[in-house]
């Protein structure tokens, strides 16, 4: 424990810590409902659905093909990979690359996302910084290096103060991310107030669904399927079976259950 422990005025707890928690929480709930109001249904393309299912099918063939007879597996592999008529070779989808700058629907989506999430965060963060400045709010339970001081202790110009003591702005940001599980509890999964998930999706960006390039996906699936060999899992199944008695436990009951109860 470095340095003497500071004793904070208990009115800080009453008038700063708790109000920030409530403000963050209610703003989050508000954001969720606003997102639901201005959210528009994503139209699913039949082609995309079909393609993604085909890719899934091919993957299952690779993984579980060993349970099928050799001929059936060969027939299906042939269907996909045949040099002339195979599905992956023959089908080329026309891909329109979705440029985020010019594609209007994605542009409006991005704008709406920014509006509902980033803007309130900035506004409220700034207001809290202005309203609750000049004093220390709370202490994080683990020691921090001095590098964090200017970031976490805005407005408090004390060189000797431990970096673990943070200002109210940092308490606000802590809340924004910490209340995520509370939102899940109250609003159910997939809620619009979950900011970190939104930020994640913004970063991974165009990696959603098959829209970017089904052709590439087809090609990689074709390669993967080519190298798969059929090793029949049922080769020795009878031998394994007859070497021991069957386990009939649970097959016979004193009273037979007639109705579904």
């Amino acid at each position, binding site marked *: 424990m470095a340095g003497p422990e500071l004793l904070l005025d208990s009115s800080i707890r009453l008038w700063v810590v708790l109000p920030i928690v409530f403000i963050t929480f209610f703003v989050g709930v508000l954001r969720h409902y606003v997102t639901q109001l201005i959210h528009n249904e994503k139209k699913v393309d039949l082609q995309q659905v*079909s393609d993604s299912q085909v890719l899934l099918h091919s993957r299952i063939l690779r993984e579980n093909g060993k349970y099928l007879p050799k001929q059936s597996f060969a027939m299906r592999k042939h269907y996909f990979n045949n040099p002339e008529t195979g599905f992956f070779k023959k089908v080329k989808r026309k891909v329109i690359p979705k440029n985020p700058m010019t594609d209007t629907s994605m542009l409006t989506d991005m704008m709406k996302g920014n509006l509902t999430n980033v803007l309130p965060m900035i506004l409220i963060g700034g207001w809290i910084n202005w309203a609750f400045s000049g004093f220390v709010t709370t202490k994080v339970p683990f020691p921090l290096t001095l590098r964090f001081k200017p970031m976490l202790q805005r407005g408090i110009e004390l060189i000797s103060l431990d970096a673990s003591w943070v200002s109210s702005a940092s308490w606000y940001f802590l809340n924004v991310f910490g209340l995520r599980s509370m939102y899940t509890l109250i609003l159910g999964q997939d809620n619009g107030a979950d900011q970190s998930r939104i930020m994640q999706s913004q970063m991974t960006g165009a990696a959603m669904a098959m829209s970017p390039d089904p052709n590439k996906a087809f090609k990689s699936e074709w390669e993967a399927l080519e190298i798969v060999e059929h090793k029949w899992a049922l080769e020795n199944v*009878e031998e394994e079976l007859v070497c021991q008695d*069957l386990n*009939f436990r649970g097959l016979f009951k004193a009273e037979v259950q007639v109705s*579904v109860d």
Partner: protein
Amino acid sequence: ITSTNVSLSCISEMRDKLRKWREENYRNSEQIVDVGEELLNEHASKLGDDIWIIYEQVMIAALDCSRDDLAWSCLQELKRQFPDSHRVKRLAGMRLEALERYEDANKLYDSILQDDPTNTAARKRKISILRAQGKSSEAIRELNEYLEQFVGDQEAWHELSELYINEHDYAKAAFCLEELMMTNPHNHLYCEQYAEVKYTQGGLENLELARKYFAQALKLNNRNMRALFGLYMSASHIAASPKVSAKVKKDNMKYGAWAASQISRAYQMAGRGKKENKCSVKAVEEMLESMQITMS
């Protein structure tokens, strides 16, 4: 006989029963109608948001039991709450189907599909209409087209295999069952159905495959008696065939004998402690002997 003071635990019991039946896809429609009707008429206020899915479940069960009055009232409630929903439209279509107004039902489903071409439920209902009308070849054709686009729909593959079996097109039925086996490698029932189709197709190669898949079904679930009998039959059949080599004959007779011993063992265990045990065991032995395939 319902009292207005039914305790809360009773209500939650009924809700849990309905949920269990819903999640495990039971088709005990009369029971669902009984429990559901009581729940909806007496305790609707205590159900919260669950009430809508219970309406749907009870409505489908009511259609099964020809209770159009109950189905109509459920449908009205759902329409009022979700006026533009495709899901509710599908339920309305199902009611028209139950009343055999197939033309109207078809029009309704077509309107859903115009709005949303990826709606699988409406397409499947249209195929069921064809099946209900007895037009199995058209149903098969439509189902094939559907499966070309929605390759992963297992319910559809199973339906198609049933249709093919009814048409005695066993090769294609086997193909459908292979799809199911591939996506559910641990489901012993699909293995067993596949083996049965192969056995029905006949021919030495198919019998061998049938034997293998009966054995696989047994391996996945030791208690599948049908697979055990199937194993016995296919092994005996191969052993009795004149075209096999001596080694194959010996192997198959071994498998057949093992299967027979397991069957006797099962019947002995079943009759344990009962007076009729000796008679039933003897009956099983006689049955096994009579099932011996003799060379023709």
